[in-house]
């Protein structure tokens, strides 16, 4: 459980230390990609809690979503349609859904534990 969080911190600090800046024009693509990555990550956690986690699906989904989102934003710029909004909307909705489901799982598990403890006392 602690390993991913440790790695998250390592990743963030690595990003800050390296002092890489994306050119202004590409900042949009990166923001969409970050959103997609978030979405996939939460999806992975949710799948794990549902015991449906599959490494191949997770890894492929992560890279595919990130690239697709950036490509969608790129296409939108080329066509003059704000297609990145579609990505923002889709990922935003799924982000909330995934977080809600994860929350429910955790709450459920807690109440389960309490019930078990109660039963044990009796």
């Amino acid at each position: 459980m602690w390993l991913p969080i440790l790695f998250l911190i390592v990743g963030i600090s690595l990003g800050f230390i390296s002092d890489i800046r994306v050119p202004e024009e590409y900042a949009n693509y990166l923001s969409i990609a970050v959103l997609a990555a978030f979405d996939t990550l939460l999806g992975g956690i949710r799948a794990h809690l549902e015991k449906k986690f599959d490494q191949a699906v997770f890894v492929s989904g992560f890279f595919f979503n990130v690239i697709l989102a950036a490509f969608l934003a790129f296409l939108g710029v080329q066509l003059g349609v704000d297609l990145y909004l579609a990505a923002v909307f889709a990922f935003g909705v799924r982000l909330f859904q995934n977080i809600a489901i994860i929350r429910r799982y955790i709450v459920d598990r807690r109440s389960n534990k309490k019930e078990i403890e109660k039963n044990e006392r009796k």
Partner: protein
Amino acid sequence: MIEMNIRSKIIFSFVFALVGFMIAIQFQTTQEPKVRDTRDLWEVRTELQKQQKTQQELLAKERELNKMIAQYEGQSNFEKVETLNKSLNNLKLKAGLTEVKGAGLMLTVEPIFQDLEYAETYPTVSPSLLHQLINELNTYGAKDISIGQERITNLSPIRDVNGTTYVNNHPVPPLPIKIKVLAEDPEKLLNYMEVSDSLEMFVIENLSVSMEIRKKLTLPEYEQTPDLQYLETEDATETGET
């Protein structure tokens, strides 16, 4: 927590690190570098002096206007009309509706016939040349300008009509043209104009400009009624009014 096998854990951690990295970069990209005040003491002082000067000018203007208000308020009807006339004349002078006299610069635009091979036609002054010249004159402290017999006001059009240059909707006379410029300091204006770019542009079009300082110059008034159809009164209260 449900236990993961070690491989999923590693993959998860890797993706987490990647996401963290992306977030950090995105954060750095969107966070614009703060604009610091890098002026040194001297620059700040100069800026302060400039602002103080502006303030003084504004105060002087305010005093003048207040005086005018006092004049309006504390006078009989006859005097009121007089004050009104005075400010009207003042405004007319500013708008270029009156003849003005003073010291200034006399510019004479003449054709050059150096390379006769190319100069087949008699050279003319194009509107863009005149625009540039007027802009430069104004930059270097000209107060009033007239081209030939046409006074240049803020509303004066200078344009090309069927190949002829028109100023104030009248064609400019054939060369040589005399351009009269009034200035507070004609000598300074002359010095500036002698090294200005627009004279070179005149030379490219086979025109030469000679300049001399005149103690007495008379500029004609703007003869037409100023067309103010695009001006509108503003109803909004100005800042500072209560």
